[in-house]
Each structure stands twice: as C-alpha cells, then as structure tokens.
C-alpha cells in the first residue's frame, strides 16, 4: 500500500519532467540547425565563388555567377604578393606557436601546481591573463606600435613574432590549465619519491598526461596567429601576413585566389578538427 503511494507521488514529477520533450525533440533542433546553417552559409558562398569564372579583363572576384571553373585552383600561386604573404603567415604561425606553447605551458604548470604562499603573485598573473584576453585587440596593437616607435624598432617579421607570441600565451595557458586541473599531483610526487629528477618527472609523467591540452593550446595559438589582422596590421611594417595582404587587396578588388586559399585552409582545418574528434572518441 505504502509502496503504491510512493510510486504515485513519483510519477507526478516524472510526467512534468517529460513535458519539455517536444521542445527538445523538434523546436530546438530545428532552430539550432538553422543557426548552424547561418554560420556555414558564408563559407559555402566562399567555396562556391572560388570556382566562379571571371569574364572581365581584370582577374577579380565578381558578384555575378559566370560559370564553373577550376582555373583559380590551377593558378593558385599566380599572384606573387598573395603567395608570399601566405608563406609568411605560415612561418610566423609556426614560430610563434612553438614559443607561445612552451611559455604558456610553463606558466600553466606554475599556476595550477603552486598556490597561496608557494607562489606569490599568482593572482596578479591570473588578472594579466584575463586582461590580455579581454582587452580590445586594437588597443594592444596600437600600444605595441607605440612601443616599437618609442624604441625605434624596425617593424617586420621580428616584431610580428613578438606580438603574436604576446597574444597567444594567455590562450595556451588557459587551455593547458583546464587540462592540468584534473591532474593528480600525487603522480608527480610518486615520481620524485622514486628518484626521478624534475626534468625526468616532467618528460615521463607530466607531459604525456597533459599532452592533449598542450596540443589543443598549440592549435589555438596557430589558429590565432594565422588569422590575426588587427595587431598584425599595426606591427607588420612592409612584410604583410596573409590577412593584412588580403585586406589591402580587397580595397581595390579581391583576386579569386584569395577564396581558393580560404577554401583550402578551411578544408584542412575542418578535416583536422573532425578527425581529432573521432580519435578522441575512440580513446574513450
């Protein structure tokens, strides 16, 4: 009898809980897919226009659809300025990613492992990292330009690396820290107790465990660097990376090869992201 009373009480909220289902089953998914379609739409347009024929004498992307062609993929490297800007961006992203990943990972380890009296100034670091991520990029770019002008530093590849590492460190640190905070310090202590050197402990115990976080941070730094326009525009001088070159060219007219580069980078990025998703699922 009493058991029956309990079940009848339990079914009431059960019924209420079931009510939102139609929302989750139909309205929200439809809406969400529409939002995703909106996010993807310009990318589809970019890919489609990278196959658009050009009828006018000037080889610039036109708004009208003139027919399908592979011409721009065959002639992807026909614009020397664009190609060299692209390779400059790749070099820049590689160099700044390596530096930012090493420095950011070290900082993340310090922030997670050492708290309170063991690491004075930790709070200050946290605040600088947040400010670095939240500050408007134009302020960072402009103030860097002020620094380089004040100390007469010639702007070029070197200043670009300085700037890109500066805005990437915080993102790497935040990403690695997220991975580290679920990490058992006792594993390190065990390695120490078994006579491992600090470097040995790091190389054989800590690093393998945080490696997914470090790689995610490195990927983030690479993406930030290769896409950066605002800061680069301030500190690049005469050596324009890919986004700065594209922006400058677009004020006159966009060559179709820009969309070819965009399409190729997008495809590589999405394939990488989805395959890492599949790999991480298999591991679990």
């Amino acid at each position: 009898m009493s058991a029956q009373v309990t079940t009848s009480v339990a079914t009431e909220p059960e019924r209420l809980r079931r009510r939102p289902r139609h929302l989750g089953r139909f309205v929200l998914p439809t809406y969400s897919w529409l939002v995703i379609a909106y996010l993807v739409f310009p990318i589809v347009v970019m890919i489609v226009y990278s196959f658009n024929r050009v009828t006018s004498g000037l080889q610039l992307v036109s708004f009208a659809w003139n027919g399908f062609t592979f011409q721009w993929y065959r002639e992807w490297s026909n614009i020397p300025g664009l190609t060299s800007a692209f390779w400059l961006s790749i070099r820049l992203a590689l160099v700044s990613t390596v530096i930012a990943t090493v420095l950011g990972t070290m900082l993340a380890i310090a922030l997670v492992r050492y708290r309170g009296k063991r690491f004075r100034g930790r709070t200050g670091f946290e605040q600088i990292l947040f400010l670095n991520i939240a500050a408007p990029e134009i302020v960072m770019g402009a103030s860097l330009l002020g620094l380089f002008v004040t100390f007469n530093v010639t702007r070029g590849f070197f200043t670009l690396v300085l700037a890109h590492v500066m805005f990437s460190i915080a993102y790497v640190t935040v990403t690695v820290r997220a991975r580290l905070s679920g990490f058992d310090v006792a594993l390190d202590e065990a390695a120490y107790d078994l006579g491992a050197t600090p470097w040995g402990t790091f190389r054989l115990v800590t690093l393998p465990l945080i490696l997914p976080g470090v790689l995610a941070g490195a990927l983030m730094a690479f993406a930030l660097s290769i896409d950066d326009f605002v800061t680069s525009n301030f500190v690049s001088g005469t050596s324009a990376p890919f986004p700065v070159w594209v922006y400058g060219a677009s004020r006159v007219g966009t060559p179709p090869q820009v969309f070819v580069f965009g399409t190729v980078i997008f495809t590589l990025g999405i394939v990488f992201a989805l395959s890492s998703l599949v790999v991480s699922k298999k591991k679990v």
Partner: protein
Amino acid sequence: MNLPDRRRSRARGLAPYLLSLPAGTWLLVLFIVPLFIMLSITLKTCSPASGACVMTWQWGELPHVVNQYRAQFVTSLVFAALATVIDLVISFPIAYWIAFYGGRRKNFFLIMLLVPFFVSFIIRTLVWEFILSNNGVVLTFLKGHHLMPSSFHVLGTGLAVVAGLAYNYLPFTALPLYVALERIDRRVLNAAYDLYANRRVAFMRVILPLTIPGIFAAFLLTFIPAFGDYVNQEILGGTANTMIGTVIQNLFLIDSDYAGGASLSAVLLAVSLVGIWLYAKLLGSRTIQDYL
C-alpha cells in the same frame, strides 16, 4: 631532513617563479609596458605641425579628442550593443540545446558553432560584403521575388555593420553560455521539478539565475571586441557610420597622430576595464576565468 632533500625543496620553492618567468617577462615587456607607454603618450602634448611630442603631464589631448570623436564613440557603442544583444538572443537557445540535449554529439555541435573560425576573419567579412551587395545572393533573390523594393540596399549602412559584427562574434557569445548551461547540476533541476516547478518556473528560477555569470561573461567577450572592431565597419559600412576603431587606426597608421590615437585607445581600454571590474564586483573575479 638531510642535505639533498633540503636542496631539492629549495629548488622546488623557486619552481613557480622560474616556470612563470619567461611568459611573465614576455607579457610584461610586450603587453603591460606598452599599455603604460600608451597612457604616457596621452599625457604628452604634440604639435600638429612637426608631429613632435613633449611630456607636459597634462591630459591635453584627451578631452579634446574625446569631444571631437563623440559621434564615433556613440556609433561604436550602439553597434556593439546591438550586435551583442542579437548574439545573446540567437545563441542562447542553441547553447541550451547543446548543453541539455546534445548527448554524445556535443563536441560535434561545438565544432559546428566554431565553424566560422576555420575561415579567416577578413575573408569571412569579405564574403558578407559579397552576400549583402546589391548584386549579391540575398538581395537579388528578395528583389527578384518582389519581396523588397529594388532601391533597397544594405551594404554601406549601419545594418550591414551590425550584421557583420553579429556574425563574426557569435561564437564568442555562444561558448560562454554553453559552458554556464553545461555546468548546471542536473540534480538541482530535477529537484525543482520534484518540488512541482513547471518548465517555465524551473527555467526562470533555476536555469536563468545559474546562467547569469555566463551571460555576463558572454556579453563582455562579445561587446569589448565588437566595440573596438573596425574591420566590419570598413568593409561593410563604407564611409558612413565610422566607428572608433577606424578613427584610432587612421590616427596611428595614416595621420601618425600618436597622442590622439593613444588617447582614444585609453578611453577604449577604460571602457573594457569598467566592464571587467563590474563583473568582478558583482559576480566575483574567480568565476570569470571559468569562461575563457
């Protein structure tokens, strides 16, 4: 404690400082010091003729410049606020859906939210210029079906700028909202249902209050970059509706008016700091890092 032990513990006492030294130096020299240099430039007075600046310890340029570009500040404020509100409205339901109904496909949907980031910011904005142009896909279609007067145009108006800002910063809004919603303890929600809350009450009194820090973080992470943005305005807005970012960029890179540019940047920075300070004051500074 024997000798090697003590030496080891001293080395480990230094460890946090040694580990944070390189990143700290980099950020100090290339982030903090430049900000102070910029602030010091605002204290200088520059002669417009020679471009030479003398330290006068007065905010000579600041009120003058702020006054001069008041309209651009207002435009930036309105555009950024509109774009942020649009983004919050668009992304809340999808963040909610992924957090509560995403199931095993959560990561896939998160990648879909981040899809715009796989295309360069400049190219994304250029494509929107294409889409919104008079011969572009959208307007040609709408005008072809007589859904819109043929004189109607979007490009070169504030509407295009707000649309571009809203598109480009949408993931910055959606992700913090997702993090906040994802973190809500399902047991709390079930408790609300067990206590006979209906769906609306549970949403208004449990989900929404628990999401407020996320909404605020999303607001900051969208509004601050949108406020300083000038790419969307320059590509989509034409010469009208100049935003403050455009002015700063022109003062620095075209007019070489460093004092003016620095003063405006300082105001921009101050606006962002006030936002962050408000967040820390109202919701505590510890939670803000959770949304990065």
